[in-house]
């Protein structure tokens, strides 16, 4: 059984009245939701809030889910929309948490100077370019899926990726050559 088939089974069970099926969906996708939220919003607490908002919306929408796309794509679309709304409410791009160890439940990570610059540059990209870059490069979605998630076209997704790469090269300039000889 593939992951998507498993999701569909769980969705059908939930639609038939089995509330625990939704718990299984949460358990299956919460790590992904947190990770993508973290990448899109750059902050542990906001990422948790956003991922939970997405699950709440999914819970509300699941009775009307028509299996026109895989659950994961549908859920990603919701999550991305939640993250977009949250970003809009921020006055400026979020600061990257260099040391999220303030929360004992999250293992700390260490970033090189170049990684900090790269992360900050990604966060400063225009919204569509940033979303496309993250979905394509970090989440490995193909262009048609990205178009589906972002409500755009394959060509627009390609263009946004091209613009994002160009912007990163321009912003990082010499650091890029130094860090990636």
């Amino acid at each position, binding site marked *: 059984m593939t992951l998507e088939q498993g999701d569909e089974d769980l969705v059908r069970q939930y639609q038939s009245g089995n509330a625990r099926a939704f718990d299984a969906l949460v358990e299956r996708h919460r790590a992904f939701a947190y990770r993508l939220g973290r990448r899109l919003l750059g902050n542990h607490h906001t990422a948790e809030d956003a991922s939970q908002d997405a699950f709440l919306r999914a819970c509300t929408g699941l009775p009307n889910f028509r299996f026109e796309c895989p659950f994961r794509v549908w859920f990603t679309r919701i999550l991305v929309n939640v993250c977009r*709304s949250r970003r809009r409410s921020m006055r400026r791009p979020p600061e990257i948490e260099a040391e999220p160890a303030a929360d004992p439940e999250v*293992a700390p990570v260490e970033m090189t100077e170049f990684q900090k610059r790269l992360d900050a540059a990604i966060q400063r990209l225009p919204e569509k370019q940033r979303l496309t870059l993250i979905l394509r490069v970090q989440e490995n979605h193909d262009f048609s899926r990205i178009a589906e998630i972002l409500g755009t076209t394959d060509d*627009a997704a390609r*263009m946004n990726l091209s613009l994002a790469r160009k912007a990163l090269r*321009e912003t990082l300039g010499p650091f890029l050559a130094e860090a990636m000889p």
Partner: protein
Amino acid sequence: MNCEDARRWIDEDGVPAEVAAHRAECPECDRAFREAERLDAAIRSLPVPEPRAAYWAGYDLRLRARMERRAGSSGRWIAAAAAILIAAGLAAVLMPRETAPPPPVRETAAAGPTPLTRFMLTFAEYARTDDAQARAALEARLDPLGRELWPHLIGKVNSADRRVAGSALDLLVRLRVRESVARLESCLGEEAWRNEAVLSAVARLDLPDSPGVLGRALRHPERQAQALSACSILPPRRAVPVIVAAYAGLAPESRAAADAYLHAQAPLARRALAQQMDAADNATLAALAPLAGDLRLREAAPRLLRLARSEEHSAAAIDGLARLKDPLLLRPLLDQSTSNALAFVQIAGQPARLQLRRLALDADPRIASAAVLMLAEFPGSETLRVLRASVARPATHAVSIDVLGRIDGAEAARILVGIYAASTRKSEIVTAVGRCGVPEMAPWLLRAALEPQVSVDAAREVLSSVPQREVVPALIAGLERYDRRSRAHEILRRLTEQNLPASAAAWERWWKKQG
């Protein structure tokens, strides 16, 4: 496959064998691919903090609590929040920063809030909520009022709060009021995020004024990237003419992104480009030339050929013509200017070189001569094969001798020696053989230099390239032959600058003294 075609695969999963082959041959493309791969690898390697296992138990509990709270209070908080806002008199704070006078608002006879107050309060709720069902309910309340009160949303688009601005744009897109497009244009400013959101909304509206607004944004250096991104939301038949019309003014990085889009919409782009080029001045035409070439817009060729005559824009015109990948264009270019034709062949590559060799044997002597002259820039066995044939033709005999003399190597020299006996241009042939720089030809050059049909100047020139230790003894020996004495004497005097008599003994004494 050319570089342009190959690089379109940079963003794709896996590449066909022909792209891999091109990459192996083209260092520039290989570098572009590697740069993208390295950047992607760096992005993928960015660490994301992973919550510890214990975190998920708490996560599930918090999510469960939120679900229960929501199930218990659904629908009540919206009304409560609105009531609190009204009670606190915050309606005035929620009034928009207006960019133009809004339409008059009809006051209701009842003592309750005015339609504008109701509208703005409802909008405030709308902007705050993420819940899809709640938003849908609020939209149903906002829609009827919005038909009249939409100008007040323009002020919200200018809000510093991105969430408010985004919600106002979402609502304006939903309302689809034609006049809103022009008003949205006035919201464009310095902030990239707002410009992106506004232009995206203009494109989503897709109303008659939308292409005009996007076209003007494309001409603004600071808004090109956002405008291009927004254009891709429009239907291609509406977006392509806008991008093509602004193409000449795009910055290089925006032009690359526009190229990617226009190539994906090639049939529409060709049509729009043909119309644009019909009305373009020379500077615009020059900017559009590479795009016309890449899109294989063959009907652009006559205009580009005319443009190639202009000194200022000839390079762009030739670039565009070469990208059309039509070797038959070489003939009119040869007719026009050898330097333009040469640039064309250098850019267009192998097919153009093949055509050049064909034209070297053309029936038109002017074309054939010009083509032969250019062959000197492309030496090789195929060129020598053509020159062997062209040197035998009266129309291209002289120019072929000259070109053969400019090609280093024994084969060119052998071709020249082969035609020497039958040719009347012996001086030119001797000079050309000398220029071939083949040491083994020295004895032949010594013999030929002493023949009376070869001019003294030509003989002196070629003999000056042969070492004196070989030339002088041969010329002194020539002094002893009756038929060559005067020629040998004259050349000896000019080469050595010695004024000795035509006596072999006198010259031998002098030569021995030189050691």
